């Protein structure tokens, strides 16, 4: 069965609701609609196909078990699903202390400005506020969130002590929040 499901929030919320009641076709449709995106997010973090496949599998087992915990106030369904996948991927990396080869994606900021799905206003605001950070801070935030870099990996990458990276991250977080609240 290959149902076409759009990834807009309302249809995903309907699928999540049906999944929470044990509706397997809905669960399958939810997988079809969101797995390629979640797999891409997890691949970018783990940089290992076998690990990304395991994380994706575990993510959907968790979604099946916890779908009833999704509430509209939890935010956009896709953000809720992505958070489960990202958390699992990062837990794996941190607990196993995986050494990864570095592959960077410089296009992330450009793509943030390009038209895509999701809330255009939020995307634009984040793009603007990330650009307002100094270059090193911006790279740290993006490499951490998108590529799963730890403080140590960031420290190595930028040739700075881990403590400096922590300070820089904290400063960036405060600046981002202030900027996003004013946007």
């Amino acid at each position: 069965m290959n149902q076409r499901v759009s990834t807009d929030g309302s249809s995903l919320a309907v699928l999540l609701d049906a999944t929470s009641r044990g509706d397997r076709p809905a669960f399958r449709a939810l997988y079809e609609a969101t797995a390629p995106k979640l797999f891409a997010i997890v691949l970018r973090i783990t940089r290992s196909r076998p690990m990304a496949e395991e994380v994706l599998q575990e993510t959907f087992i968790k979604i099946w078990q916890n779908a009833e915990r999704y509430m509209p106030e939890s935010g956009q369904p896709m953000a809720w699903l992505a958070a489960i996948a990202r958390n699992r991927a990062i837990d794996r990396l941190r607990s196993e202390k995986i050494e990864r080869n570095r592959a960077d994606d410089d296009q992330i900021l450009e793509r943030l400005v390009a038209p895509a799905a999701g809330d255009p206003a939020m995307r634009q605001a984040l793009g603007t506020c990330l650009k307002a950070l100094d270059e090193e801070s911006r790279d740290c935030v993006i490499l951490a969130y998108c590529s799963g870099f730890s403080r140590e990996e960031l420290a190595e990458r930028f040739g700075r002590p881990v403590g400096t990276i922590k300070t820089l991250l904290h400063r960036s977080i405060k600046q981002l929040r202030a900027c996003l609240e004013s946007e």
Partner: protein
Amino acid sequence: MSEERDLDAAEYVLGTLPADERARFSERLKSDAALRQDVRAWEARLAPLDETATPVAPPPDVWRAIERATAVGSTAVPEAAGTNVIALRRRVAFWRGSTAVAGLLAAGLAVVAVVDRLSLPPVAAGGRYVAVVDSGGHEPALIAEVDTTTGTIRVRSLTAETPSGRSLELWHVPEGQAPRSLGILKAGLDAQTINDAASAGPVDGLIAVSVEPEGGSPSGAPTGPIVYTGRLIPVE
């Protein structure tokens, strides 16, 4: 909102908290609704970055594994398990047949010898078994995958928690037999592989987890409460 808490929430979402702080933070999240709110706010702020990932189709194996794991405990189990057993038997039969033929070609044995070989006890078929191990509730604690070709058991911990000052010990309970220790679940490790020579052949029964004194059961049999169990199901 305190500044400190919000920085922790943001770093949790960024993924930059060190492993021990991250584990403590996850623990705090369970009982702190305001902190969950802070995390959700950061997830929403940064979510547009997820849109920059170009979708990649996962291999079909992933869905099959999810389907199997989520079918455990539901009405789909008997049918699915039955089909798997039949598929496994077919493979065993095929494997034994091809071994016999290979033996015939290699050694020039008589046809009678081939027939003899076919009536030998089952040989170890290469195969995989999986158990989704839980506490009888709906949250799976761990997934155990047995690979009989390599005699290894891969254990992935999802929500299993080691009580402080104790150890979680993993057991295989073959059908109608006493539990056999597979070793200690290393606390805080999300995935570990256990070498187990006895798993280099078809396995059945349960995978169980008991709470033991630190370092494991002193007697070789479970002494503490069995906190999680899951039935081994052949896959592929």
